[in-house]
């Protein structure tokens, strides 16, 4: 052992943990060059194009009234994991080490939006049983595939995949990939929801490394305190009955996109749907 230590000294090295992968820790700011409207101001009602929705999901989304967010019980619902990193948020990633071995056992993420903390365990622990409690951020484990941190998450609460009322069930699972390209962090999320999606939904986003401490760039997390916002009767749930959502026609008129496309579905995601759109527009013009 003595010779090994001598070797280390000869090579001018201090024993330390090494990073075989890219360093993804630090503070990251989102780029909004894609899906900007969905992610920042938010899309208007009845715009589900490009989502592989089941009929049930479409019905749910069409019955959704934006006033729902004012209902006392819903006011403090945060964006669930499948959506939150698409939202207007900065991201801080840090490594959590075992105090005895100095090995990294987890990556912690602080998501500025709603001040959410999540832990991604990389120590090989299993996911809890299906009956374990669910949370907004779920339970996450990670593994490195080369320079990409691959994160699998279960136990996510019911929420939404688009914040204009498109639902996500508590059976959803996600696989996320964090890959660093220079000062860019590419984030890809693959969302599987057996209740509301007919096929997995994929989204990719980019974050840029923030330099310095950037204290002015962070918004302090404010605890959500629900309070009465409307004069609606207690426990009333704003909604639209089937066929009565007034925004279907409005969305069609404003966007010039036929309602069939705006109400989403797997077929709207593929190049050949452009042809269908042309046909629908021709029919509309007649």
């Amino acid at each position, binding site marked *: *052992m003595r*010779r*090994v*230590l001598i*070797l*280390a000294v000869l*090579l001018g*090295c201090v*024993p*330390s*943990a*090494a*990073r*075989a*992968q890219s360093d993804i820790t630090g503070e990251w700011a989102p780029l*909004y*060059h*894609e*899906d*900007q*409207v969905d992610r920042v101001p938010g899309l208007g009602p009845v715009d589900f194009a490009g*989502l*592989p929705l089941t009929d049930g999901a479409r019905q749910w989304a069409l019955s959704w009234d934006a006033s729902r967010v004012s209902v006392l019980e819903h006011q403090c619902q945060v964006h669930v994991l499948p959506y939150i990193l698409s939202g207007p948020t900065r991201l801080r990633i840090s*490594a959590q080490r075992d105090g005895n071995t*100095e*090995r990294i056992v987890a990556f912690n993420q602080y998501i500025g939006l709603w001040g959410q903390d999540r832990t991604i365990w*990389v*120590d*090989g622990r299993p996911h809890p049983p299906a009956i374990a409690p669910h949370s907004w951020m779920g339970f996450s484990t*990670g*593994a490195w*595939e*080369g*320079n*990409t941190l*691959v994160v699998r998450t279960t136990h996510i609460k019911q929420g939404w995949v688009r914040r204009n009322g498109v639902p996500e069930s508590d059976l959803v699972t996600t*696989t996320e*990939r964090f890959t660093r*390209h220079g000062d*860019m962090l*590419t984030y*890809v999320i*693959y969302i599987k929801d057996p209740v509301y999606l007919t096929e*997995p*939904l*994929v*989204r*990719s986003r*980019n974050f840029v490394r923030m330099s310095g401490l950037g204290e002015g760039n962070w918004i302090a997390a404010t605890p959500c305190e629900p309070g009465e916002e409307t004069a609606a009767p207690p426990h009333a749930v704003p909604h639209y009955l089937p066929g009565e959502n007034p925004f279907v026609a409005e969305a069609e008129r404003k*966007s*010039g996109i036929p309602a069939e*496309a705006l109400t989403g579905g797997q077929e*709207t*995601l*593929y*190049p*050949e*749907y*452009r042809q269908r*759109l042309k046909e629908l527009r021709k029919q509309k013009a007649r």
Partner: protein
Amino acid sequence: MSGRRFSAGAPEGAPLRVLVALAAASVALSAQSAPPSARAQAPRDITGYWVSVVSEDWHWRMVTPRKGDFTSLPLNDEGKRVASTWDPAKEKPADACKPFGAAAIMRVPDRVHITWADDATLRIETDAGQQARRIQFGTLATRGWRVNGRGEIEWFEQGRDAPAPPGPATWQGYSAARWDLAPDPAVVRNAVFFAGGIGTSPDGAGTMVPGKFGSLHVVTTQLKAGYLRANGVPYSDAARVTEDYDFRTEDDGTEWFTVNTTVEDPKYLAAPFVTSTDFRKEPDGSKWRPTSCAAY
């Protein structure tokens, strides 16, 4: 996890000169090995037919946006001015392929067919606009890794990017490429140990998935001026496009790639324009529908 952790016990009795030689060889292995060919270096088979899955920017990709809709594009004043003058009625037949240039083509809803033209050249064809890109390896500075004196992985670039050969500007320009390969965990473990990481192992080693991983890095220049979006949002012939392709297999067995595209244009952009676009592999070319730029 503990079974994959490096043990410091094995080399204890070895002569010092052997250890030094091993250390040198281990580090050299990662930094200096000459790659056989770009095709052989590929971390996986990326050939085949791939379809773009349009779950993002749907309103700006599946239909031509309205004139003056620059949403999310970092245009400078000149870029906005030129985009505002777009008049589809004045487009000439020669302009039909403007939305299909290399700065925009991977964002077009289409299918791509990837093949190896030879051991050092990838070919990416699109059915939309019937474009063909040639991705040439061997002319960019190579990227490697080594273990530094602190027992950390350090990335470095070797050589310089060769200038694009003289030639006319085209819709797809001249694309130079390299593989940015991730270190092999086993080689890293050895190199780190010999560089002083005694009794430690690379972070997250317990959950490192063995295999060959890496990105395809592509830089494209010599572009003919075209459109970033079909509604006349311009990029100039000074534009430079940098792409990183990350290939993967999801747990359900489907194969995907995400291409991260950065467009820099001193003439029309105030900042680099960055998008990431997702493609899924298809079993065959049965859905391949070549369409001319004008007919798309």
